[in-house]
């Protein structure tokens, strides 16, 4: 099999999830219908909701099923902003980390552009950590003006894991709700919604072995959130739309299995990640690993290869069957220097020369060996091509 090292983009579906989704696809019934088929579908939804909630330390009534991470992020950021501002017009400020995924970052920027929002981007240290003191300072400056705080649980590019409990506690010192994008965290590190103290949490299925197009926003019942989608009033009237039964079933099965197997899989994946980092650094000594040395996801290794362009490396590795990424996948396919690496202090050239290897539940030692073997000739060639996209 080809060494697939892009699990942070999407990871293979678990066999159990495929079975559950396939079975659900054979059943007719709209969960909102009142007849037998509708009730059966509703039962599947509610059982999935309960399973998902139990896996994540949430109550079933806190689960809002969505079409995935981007929707959950947009719903939380915009919906909580609108609700908080409606309750008090002074609340127009969003505090967000400077390493958010585009689904949060661009939603915040949309609020700035179209809804008169202000934004405070929280800096991160060279490892990608947000200091609780920085959040406290941003809140203390004018606490009444803050609509919400949003800081991702674990970063998708470099893998740094935040002290979310501490950050949530700081937000609550000022009675400000806190959202976290936990898309990369769920199934990789322990995630307990209630214990974390956050008020809203984004998660999605396809990063942990579930089907694409199915995710959830965990939302405390006392947090008001204005819907993005209006219609039939499903999901506490926060997210209208006919419920996706196969998606919900697959999401719940995959999440529960990923959480259940987390410790064993994470230990194995972390060992493979260390092997890939050690192997690459031994072969290319001037390569540099990004992220936190310990507070990190088990599966992500983001490295800069000086003098190379990431897109050239990616192409050369792809030609040898090694599939990885230059950071976060982008619909246009154009490599922009990563805002995450820039926030960590990288230069644009360093950011352009980075590759992300991400491992997952079915990664093997053979994948690691293939990647390490392919990287040396790829770096040699990419260095010869140099930094062509940059004007000297």
């Amino acid at each position: 099999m080809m060494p697939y090292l892009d699990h942070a983009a999407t990871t293979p579906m678990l066999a159990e999830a495929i079975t559950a989704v396939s079975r659900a696809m054979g059943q007719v019934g709209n969960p909102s219908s009142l007849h037998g088929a509708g009730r059966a579908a509703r039962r599947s939804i509610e059982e999935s909701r309960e399973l998902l909630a139990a896996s994540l330390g949430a109550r079933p009534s806190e689960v809002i099923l969505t079409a995935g991470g981007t929707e959950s992020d947009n719903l939380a950021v915009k919906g909580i902003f609108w609700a908080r501002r409606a309750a008090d017009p002074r609340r127009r400020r969003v505090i967000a980390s400077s390493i958010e995924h585009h689904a949060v970052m661009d939603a915040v920027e949309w609020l700035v552009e179209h809804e008169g929002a202000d934004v405070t981007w929280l800096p991160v240290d060279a490892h990608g950590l947000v200091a609780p003191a920085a959040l406290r300072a941003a809140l203390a400056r004018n606490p009444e003006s803050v609509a919400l705080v949003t800081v991702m649980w674990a970063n998708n590019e470099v893998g740094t894991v935040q002290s979310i409990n501490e950050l949530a506690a700081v937000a609550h010192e000022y009675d400000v709700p806190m959202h976290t994008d936990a898309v990369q965290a769920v199934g990789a590190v322990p995630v307990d919604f209630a214990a974390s103290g956050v008020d809203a949490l984004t998660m999605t299925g396809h990063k942990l072995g579930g089907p694409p197009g199915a995710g959830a926003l965990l939302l405390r019942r006392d947090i008001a959130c204005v819907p993005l989608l209006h219609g039939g009033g499903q999901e506490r009237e926060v997210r209208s739309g006919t419920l996706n039964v196969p998606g919900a079933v697959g999401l719940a099965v995959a999440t529960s299995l990923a959480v259940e197997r987390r410790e064993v899989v994470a230990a194995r994946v972390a060992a493979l990640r260390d092997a890939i980092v050690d192997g690459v650094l031994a072969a290319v000594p001037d390569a540099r690993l990004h992220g936190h040395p310990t507070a990190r996801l088990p599966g992500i290794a983001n490295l800069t290869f000086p003098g190379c362009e990431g897109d050239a490396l990616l192409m050369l590795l792809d030609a040898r069957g090694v599939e990885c990424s230059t950071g976060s996948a982008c619909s246009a396919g154009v490599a922009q220097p990563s805002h995450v690496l820039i926030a960590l202090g990288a230069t644009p050239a360093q950011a352009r020369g980075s590759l992300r290897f991400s491992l997952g539940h079915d990664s093997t030692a053979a994948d690691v060996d293939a990647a390490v073997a392919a990287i040396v000739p790829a770096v040699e060639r990419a260095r010869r091509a140099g930094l062509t996209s940059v004007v000297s």
Partner: protein
Amino acid sequence: MKILAAMSGGVDSAVAAARAVDAGHDVTGVHLALSAAPATLRHGARGCCTAEDAHDARRAADVLGIPFYIWDLAERFRADVIDDFVSEYAAGRTPNPCLRCNEKIKFTAVLDKALALGFDAVVTGHHARLVDGRLTRSVDPAKDQSYVLAVCTQRQLASAMFPLGDSTKTQVREEAAARGLAVADKPDSHDICFIADGDTRGFLARRLGAEDGPIVDAETGDVLGTHPGSFGFTVGQRRGLNLQRPTPGGDPRYVLSIRPVDNTVVVGSREMLEISQVRAEPVVWTAGVAPGERFTCSVQLRAHGMTSPTTVTVNGPVVTAVLDTPQVGVAAGQALVMYDGDTVLGSGTITAAQRTADVPA
């Protein structure tokens, strides 16, 4: 061979890539992102750098079953093509950005990167032929692009493939349809790709600022009118002068030259527009070497322009061409391309043009 196919998202480059695949090469498709802020959708038939064009290129690569990537050359394109375009106009010359793009982007930045990354050649959808390594006109005279490729050196051409030169555009479209390529009936792109609305004058005005200046008669020195910025004009242009005073004979006036220094547009009769001697530099011997110090050939002085039998004298990097038949609409900044029949001998940028009237008999 390992071949890199530059795929714009148009029908030509898609069919060129397909032919390279059919020839048994190991082909990888690359779309060049030339705009830092590409529009989502194409407007009409302009350009090749919208997200929709990238999508079309990707779909063509899917159909051909080849790997596909996007290379971001926006910064290089801005510096080497767009900034050059603006500064050439600011200097009163009329640049050809397609030619500059071939010289600096496709056959330098892209070709060098491709060769460094282990490719043997770059294939493009240009309508031109390589006959024994010599750049030659396409069999479709209406679509021939040898003029904008004449900046290429032998070294560059040695790593280039133009598989469409033996086909007409109609044949290319038919082939695309037969291959199931969705771009088969996509309109031809024309005009300048980085000026999406086609308003070159507005584009230049935003960058150079528009300042009114005089329109002056070349013979009398009289001021005949006012223009909204000299850079918006091209030598040979007749429309848009809005002159109140016609010539005594009622003949139309044409732009003869542009003087950016004093923001002046000089106009005169069609006879005064006739050029019979042209200087061009620096010369690139596309076919390898100069045919001699002094030789006869035919020259083309603008894209899709007529050719004229000419005697060329070579003096180091400078060529002087004496045209057998005078030509109009010759602008500094355009390329002088020398042909032997259909074969390109070489090219240079026009730096001076002498009017027929001023050339000593």
